[in-house]
């Protein structure tokens, strides 16, 4: 079955199941649903870093086209959103250039591609005249292209990128000529685009919360006293889709096999977890194995016939584990390699025992050429700017995902491009929020890292203890809740932050200590230390 046919079937099935047909659904879709879905699409598909180098004057035009991209992606995958967004598009008012760009891009990126509406010059002569006047005054040296040329340019540009819509960076690069043409019309007027776009276009110096880099990341910043983020515009949340986009042709090199000792340890943990489920006998049963201690009561006249015992599964609290790995520069090399091998074994063992498990990574996206820092410097270095780097949070494996599918992404952790600095507090808060939503009663968050949070730009601008204090506040909040938090310090003692921690003096002990820690946290007894 072809992709369009599959999508059409899915849409129809969804409407049959949940909405009883397209008509009633379309009629009942409240306008705010469309707005919410637009924001959700922006939060999920937009990557701030993709257009990090874009000139500020081009930003409003780009935002309009980017919004069209993320909504097109959402509409392709999710039938419900498709209906809500279509409804919202119908109701969208405005005859300015930015709104036209958005409408035209939505139409052209739809499946099948539609014909864009005529540009403002054709549709509204008064508006076009105003645009030209504005352009004349603002940019005397560059005449704006005719509206027809702009329309043709838009169609050609969007047609060229419709096959790689998921790659935000490539999309932004392809838009450059179109954006330059739009800029000839002067600065963009206010445009009635979703809130997410407006938030992004706002002043980067605004304190949190900002909705720019995904609601999840923004919410991950807790209201710790004194902690601020200069901007979340460049923050990244990478999932399987983004990891796949980064994967080189032929994939990353396969994970080197773990040593025999590590595999043995994984097996031992697995046995322990399985054994913990089969350690309960119920007595006084009418069937099962004979219980010698109750034989006397059976012989007695009118005695009890429930003289059997049966082995059953102990009512064990369901557990959910999150492994959060620091993938900053200091972990590069052998620590990262051993961590990856140990995680690979541990997740496989946990999965076989039915323990749901999530693997997350954290670092910062930007190194010395940090755009946040440049923005802060350009703004005159205002005091106490807060976090001055873009966080990068990576979902290597979600709880529902089988490990056999997810493990191919794990080698990226060994790559030099995986991350630079580490801002542990926000990563912990993010991981804890994800974990807290899980239904299991026992929640385990295990952090694997090599010491304190570290970001040169943030430290320089806010003082050495800024990130440390935030990490402490986050840990205190997590430890006060139902999550069991522990840390494994690779080469560095992390005990000054975490109440429960272990230090790996020799990197090759990572597997031993990881499995011990897991066994302890899952309450199946650890190795004696």
């Amino acid at each position: 079955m072809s992709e369009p046919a599959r999508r059409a079937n899915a849409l129809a099935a969804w409407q049959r199941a949940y909405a009883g047909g397209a008509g009633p659904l379309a009629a009942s879709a409240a306008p705010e649903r469309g707005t919410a879905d637009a924001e959700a699409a922006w939060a999920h598909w937009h990557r701030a870093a993709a257009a990090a180098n874009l000139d500020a004057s081009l930003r409003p035009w780009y935002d309009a086209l980017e919004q069209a991209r993320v909504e097109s992606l959402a509409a392709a995958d999710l039938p419900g959103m498709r209906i809500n967004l279509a409804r919202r598009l119908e109701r969208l008012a405005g005859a300015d250039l930015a709104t036209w760009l958005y409408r035209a891009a939505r139409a052209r990126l739809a499946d099948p591609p539609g014909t864009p509406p005529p540009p403002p010059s054709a549709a509204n002569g008064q508006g076009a005249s105003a645009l030209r006047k504005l352009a004349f005054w603002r940019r005397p040296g560059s005449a704006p292209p005719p509206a027809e040329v702009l329309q043709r340019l838009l169609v050609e540009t969007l047609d060229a990128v419709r096959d790689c819509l998921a790659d935000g960076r490539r999309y932004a690069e392809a838009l450059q000529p179109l954006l330059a043409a739009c800029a000839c019309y002067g600065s963009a007027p206010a445009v009635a685009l979703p809130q997410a776009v407006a938030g992004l276009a706002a002043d980067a110096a605004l304190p949190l919360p900002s909705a720019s880099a995904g609601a999840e990341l923004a919410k991950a910043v807790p209201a710790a006293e004194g902690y601020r983020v200069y901007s979340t515009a460049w923050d990244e949340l990478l999932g399987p889709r983004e990891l796949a986009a980064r994967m080189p042709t032929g994939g990353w090199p396969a994970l080197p096999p773990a040593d025999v000792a590590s595999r043995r340890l994984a097996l031992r943990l697995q046995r322990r977890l399985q054994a913990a489920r089969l350690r309960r006998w119920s007595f006084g049963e009418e069937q099962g194995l004979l219980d010698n201690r109750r034989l006397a009561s059976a012989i007695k006249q009118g005695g009890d016939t429930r003289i059997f015992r049966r082995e059953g599964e102990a009512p064990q609290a369901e557990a959910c584990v999150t492994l959060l790995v620091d993938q900053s520069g200091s972990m590069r090399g052998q620590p990262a390699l051993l961590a990856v091998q140990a995680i690979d074994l541990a997740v496989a063992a946990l999965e076989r025992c039915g323990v749901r498990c999530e693997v997350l990574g954290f670092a910062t996206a930007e190194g010395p050429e940090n755009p946040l820092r440049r923005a802060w410097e350009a703004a005159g270095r205002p005091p106490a700017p807060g976090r001055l780097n873009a966080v990068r949070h990576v979902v290597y494996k979600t709880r529902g995902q089988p490990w056999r599918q997810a493990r191919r992404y794990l080698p990226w952790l060994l790559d030099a491009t995986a991350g630079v600095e580490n801002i542990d507090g926000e990563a912990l808060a993010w991981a804890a929020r994800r974990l807290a939503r899980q239904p299991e009663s026992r929640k385990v968050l295990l952090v694997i890292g090599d010491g304190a949070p570290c970001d040169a730009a943030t430290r320089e601008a806010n003082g050495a203890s800024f990130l440390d204090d935030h990490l402490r506040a986050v840990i205190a909040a997590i430890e006060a809740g139902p999550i069991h938090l522990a840390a494994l310090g690779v080469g560095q003692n992390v005990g000054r932050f975490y109440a429960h921690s272990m230090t790996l003096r020799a990197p090759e002990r990572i597997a031993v200590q990881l499995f011990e820690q897991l066994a302890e946290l899952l309450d199946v007894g650890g190795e004696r230390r």
Partner: protein
Amino acid sequence: MSAIAGLIRLDGTAPDRATLQRMQAVLAPYGVDAQRQWREGPAGLLHCLLRITPEDSLDQQPRLDPERRCVVLFDGRLDNRRELAAELGLGSAELALLADVDLVQRACLRWADAAPEHLLGSFAYACWWPAQRRLELVRDAMGGRPLVWFQGHGFFAFASLPKGLFCIPGVPREICQASLAERLALLPMSGGQTLFKDIRSVERGQLLSLQGERLERRQYYRLDPRRELRLGSDDEYLEAFSEILERSVASCLRAAGPLATQLSSGFDSGTVTALAARQLARSGQRLTAFTAVPREGFDGPAPKGQHADEGPGARAVAARFANIEHVLIRANQRAPLDVLRARTEAMDCMPMYAVNCLWLDAIEADAQRRGVRVLLNANVGNMTISHTGLTYLAELFGKGRWRDWWRELTACRRRHPLARLLRLSVEPHLPLPLWRLQARLSDTQLHLEKRSALHSRWRQGTHLEARAKALDWFLERPRWKDSRQMRAAVLSRGNAAETAIAANLRGLELRDPTADRRLVEFCLSIPEDQYLRDGQTRWLLRRLVGDLLPPEVLNAQSRGYQAADWYETLGAALPDLHEEVQRLMSHAGAAEMLDLQGMRASLENWPAAGWERKAVTEEYRARLMRGLAVGGFIRYVEPDNR
């Protein structure tokens, strides 16, 4: 031996439990046998115990007296238990059931803040008086155990190591650059400054008391180099010396497990090993003696006047005692940089003598494998028992006792070059410009740049010269007129406490009988002619151990060169060293403080030969290795991701 810590809330609220828990978790490896906390009112105290002495089995800290008047945390060992018990009116049966902390608590209850004057040994303690809300922190006279503190907004905290304090929110973890420069320049760390910003140390022989927010310091003990002891005859000196040294060694043998000693081919360790073996033999106990020697077959050169292999001399000492098991430690299996990193983390400061770390670490590792509880050394022996006495020549010359000076000079000529003897005699009395000129001409001037890889630009900003002047110290070669003052200054400058507590991680206690306060006082107070007589250096000690030590030690014409194959070890790790320097170059702090270009140039020009030459050993063994140690410390405190 223990690790202790406490947190006092100055606003009267209860200290945070989680914070105390973290402090305990961080210090627990230093006291693996028991960890306990005590919390009441604004105070939270914690103790991590490593059982070393037999009485440690009775130890239960934090110790609250039955009437709840004071709580004591004690880390260390008392060497005058019997005398103290007599002062406190305790019988021997009662004493046998008391741990050292119990005696300290009774002393505190009896003499309050005058208690430290009654205590002898290697210790640090904290005493909290709940009713008065008063805290007392004390370190012993010789500074054998560490104790640091921090006063923040609304709280006061103390701990055996800075890492205990870093668990507390609000305590900065930053390098104090001025202190780092002073430590590298081997200046005395006065004023309690540590290598960390705003974290201070209780100084040796100091009582620090906190009442409310008011801090008071009282120096209850200070080494007095002016004190003189005059006895009737040479034999009386010998008798007194023998008695005090035997008692010092005996104090160090109180252990609930096997004992060992670091044995080289020199006088100090030989004497300590011989006396310890003799005393242990009386009770049928054995002693393990560890000697670090070069790898099998090593025939590399040693600097002039030194021998590369200390094995034969040490073996000759060990052979004299049937209860000594002699163990040769040939090489450390761990990579040099790993050893430095581990030591830095264990001590919360960098090792000053990085090359020595390698063999010391190997000895401690072997001792740990053998279940040793106490490892004896004689680290300050050359300032106490085995002082050569050659400085006596300068004293005679300065006092104008020409005849005596000439007699000693001519007697000394049999073993020492005349030029050296003349230099020793005259040099300290030269006017300063002339002294500097002489030192430069004779190439005996010690430049700071040659000993440490400090960046000259950074060094200029630390005002080291002014600081040295204020301390009446020298950045170049010391110029001492008075041997006692020199020895007292060197003894006061040492930082044995960090090394001592680092050994806790291996379940060991390091003990130095030559640093016993009674012995130090005696050795500093007797006349110089007891050390140099008729051209014979170490005259007093020679008379004492003449029958104990073998001729290989007594008549040795050269002294041992520790870790003689150090350049082979480092050469094998050259790629790691290059990588480390590269890492340091990308670290802003390290690049600012250290002459990394110079260090890299040293690595790139790794010599193929000539390792015995002074210039080479200075450049590689001292400068490069110290630079790497400091760089490692900077990265430990201020980690980065590059």
